[in-house]
């Protein structure tokens, strides 16, 4: 068995992983292991922008950004971590630009910024231009730029290797076990520090903006090793996914003036969020949309609504809202301007819907989008094991897979890309510093046994049902009962179904006996991960008897700070689920009612 030794191993090559690798590799020997070629990572799909209070177009401050993020999190975010992230944001953007990121620009040559949901001028309460963007493909540009920098700095990559297990020696991280996809060979990566940056797990829901590959592998591996997952009940449903496909239409469309309209032609957000309307926080908008369609006001009475960004609509409502350009002149757009600002969205709509957004409104519905929860870490990116923040030495996590928590119960747009670069960087720096200060642990001879057993068990599944139905049924039950609105009955039904699916999963049929690119085997392993995450999500949601942020219960519709101002920690080991709770760090902002 091949054994590789590096000071630092990064698992996952998206924005957080690449940023971590860039920084770690400056001080320590580093390798990145990814099941995909790095530029395939889902960071590349992010559209809207990265939030930072540069103030290039109008007055803005990191303090405002901090408050907006705390409020956006429905007061569940840890305020010290949020303050840290928003303070680092400005310099982080300049750093990306220095690396070559091709931001869109304003006439004087500085980075362009646009409004985004939940980001406000704290004095007036109106939307503020805080999102720094590169057309409507900011994520693509970030991913490409970071990958280019990794090539420039000779970072070592192991592409198309699937990490299967974390190696712990006496409770200290000592490396990972990975499967070379091209050959089925198992490799051991011996390290002093391991950084998990494996992204989200939207695939457990039927309608999702997430890539096929987002199966929450890092969280699943951590759970198997006795590490809890935090705040798993908080999963964001983005308001505007393309009807039926779930492909994301960026909030930036609403930032440019697009509005949501129901079957009666009403701009219904006026009723749910009087001040910021369509630019309210995502959970608020998704719930509003869901209620509209449930009450029969969907388009043609069905389950979708319209996102209208036709110039005449944008201009009409901009005038009604009194929206202005930074120089005070009335906000107006032309078809050409919209085409220049939102080219990719227009392409998606034409390709998948046969609809030209300049001429027709787009059919949209809420789509499973982002995991606020994940592997719990402290502000240094170190993974913690319990409510006292006991550190697991040598293990770090960053990006969507981690839960610091900066997003609490709901994430604001543009804060994920920011999260990646700030916490990716600091996880990399801290992991490298730690790795260089300790000696390599001796690896036990059975380090790879668990992973090999799992793979062999799956490989030997010759008789049984194909994966298709189990996958489909999981995604449907999660969408129906652990989606935008939840009830005790629904979630209980979902939990029973998931447990039934887990049992059926033990008797599946793997058709591929080969050793070369056995994607059948790997997909099955990923489904196993997803079933575990579905179980953890549902149990966590069942137990939280309040509504907060993205977790909305029809049977407990109010936020209950007295009982529930705390983070959930969920363990899933050897088939048993356990829950404990951890306090929220509150520094500057006392929880208030959340109105937009």
């Amino acid at each position, binding site marked *: 068995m091949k054994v590789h030794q590096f000071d630092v191993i990064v698992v996952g090559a998206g924005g957080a992983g690449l940023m971590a690798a860039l920084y770690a590799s400056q001080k320590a020997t580093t390798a990145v292991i990814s099941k995909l070629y790095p*530029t395939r990572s889902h960071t590349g*799909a992010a559209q809207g922008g990265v939030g930072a209070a540069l103030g290039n177009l109008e007055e803005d401050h990191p303090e405002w950004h901090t408050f907006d993020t705390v409020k956006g999190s429905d007061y569940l975010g840890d305020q010290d971590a949020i303050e840290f992230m928003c303070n680092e944001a400005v310099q982080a953007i300049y750093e990306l630009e*220095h690396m070559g990121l091709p931001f869109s620009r304003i006439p004087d040559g500085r980075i362009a910024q646009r409004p985004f949901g939940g980001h406000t001028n704290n004095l007036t309460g109106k939307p503020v231009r805080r999102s720094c963007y590169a057309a409507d493909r900011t994520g693509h540009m970030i991913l490409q730029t970071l990958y280019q920098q990794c090539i420039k700095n000779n970072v070592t990559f192991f592409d198309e290797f699937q990490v299967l297990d974390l190696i712990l020696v006496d409770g200290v991280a000592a490396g990972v076990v990975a499967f070379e996809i091209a050959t089925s060979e198992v490799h051991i990566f011996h390290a002093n520090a391991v950084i998990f940056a494996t992204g989200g797990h939207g695939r457990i829901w039927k309608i999702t903006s997430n890539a096929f590959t987002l199966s929450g592998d890092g969280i699943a591996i951590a759970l198997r090793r006795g590490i809890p997952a935090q705040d798993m009940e908080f999963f964001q449903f983005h308001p505007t996914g393309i009807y039926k496909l779930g492909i994301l239409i960026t909030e930036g469309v609403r930032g440019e003036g697009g509005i949501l309209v129901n079957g009666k032609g009403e701009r219904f957000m006026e009723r749910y969020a009087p001040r910021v309307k369509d630019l309210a926080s995502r959970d608020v908008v998704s719930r509003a949309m869901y209620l509209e369609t449930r009450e029969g006001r969907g388009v043609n009475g069905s389950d979708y609504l319209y996102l209208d960004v036709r110039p005449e609509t944008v201009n009409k409502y901009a005038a009604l809202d009194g929206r202005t350009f930074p120089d005070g002149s009335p906000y107006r757009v032309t078809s050409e301007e919209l085409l220049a600002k939102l080219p990719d969205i227009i392409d998606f709509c034409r390709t998948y819907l046969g609809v030209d957004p300049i001429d027709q409104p787009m059919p949209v519905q809420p789509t499973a989008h982002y995991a606020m929860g994940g592997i719990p870490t402290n502000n240094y990116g170190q993974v913690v094991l319990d409510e006292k923040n006991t550190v697991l030495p040598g293990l770090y996590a960053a990006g969507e897979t981690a839960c610091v928590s900066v997003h609490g119960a709901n994430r604001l747009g543009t804060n994920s890309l920011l999260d990646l670069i700030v916490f990716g960087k600091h996880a990399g720096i801290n992991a490298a510093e730690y790795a260089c200060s300790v000696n390599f642990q001796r690896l036990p001879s059975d380090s790879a046994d668990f992973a090999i057993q799992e793979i062999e068990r799956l490989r030997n599944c010759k008789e049984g049902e194909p994966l298709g139905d189990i996958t489909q049924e999981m995604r449907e039950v999660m969408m129906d009962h652990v989606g935008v609105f939840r009830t005790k009955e629904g979630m209980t039904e979902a939990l029973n179904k998931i447990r039934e699916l887990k049992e059926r999963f033990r008797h599946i049929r793997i058709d591929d006996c080969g050793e070369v690119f056995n994607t059948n085997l790997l997909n099955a392993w990923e489904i196993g991960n997803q079933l575990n995450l579905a179980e953890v999500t549902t149990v966590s949601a069942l137990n939280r008897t309040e509504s907060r942020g993205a977790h909305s219960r029809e049977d407990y519709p109010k936020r209950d700070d007295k009982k529930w101002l705390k983070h959930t920690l969920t363990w899933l080991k050897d088939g048993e689920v356990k829950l404990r709770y951890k306090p929220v760090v509150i520094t500057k902002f006392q929880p208030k009612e959340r109105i937009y």
Partner: protein
Amino acid sequence: MEAEPTDRVLDLLERVKGYQDGSLSFRRSCGHGVCGSDAMRINGRNRLACKVLVKDLGAKKIVVEPLLGLRVIKDLIVDMEPFFEHYETVMPFLVNNEPPPIKERLQSPEQRVRIDDTTKCILCAACTTSCPSFWANDQYVGPAAIVNAHRFIFDSRDRAASERLRILSGQFGVYRCHTIFNCTDACPRDIQITKAIGEVKKAIATGSLD
């Protein structure tokens, strides 16, 4: 199999894999044309499987084949290593050793527009593997590498244009391009590739970036 007109070819492949034959292997990730994983030949043309809808093909029979010019590893999976190696030879990263300002380096909207097209590349390899010059000799760096070089050569903040132009004026650089246009046709991001290659040729010939 049964299909809706709005199904993506990728959806059909996933259905085959999930219900009929789990051994069918193909790369895919985002499912909406931004990651570049699922480039393949569909009814003879290089396309991304997630961007082709059943109704776009206007045919009841759909033939899927791996890309040409790269070694087939299995089913629809080809060896992407030579493609990425060529990409790495053109210095595809910003080079500027002047101390950066505290804030952003300035760049006008016009300067930014100059590179807008070539920043779109998702490294899917549809262009390079549709190029007859690449099929004839796979040492040619290929359209994608040249596009990514263009993105930096014409970026007002970069200072290594002459090195990249020197690399591309070599035996397997831009002069392998015979303006066949297959690349432009194949690009799922609608990048004007042949035009970009032409601009690089002109920069080499005139010694100027204007």
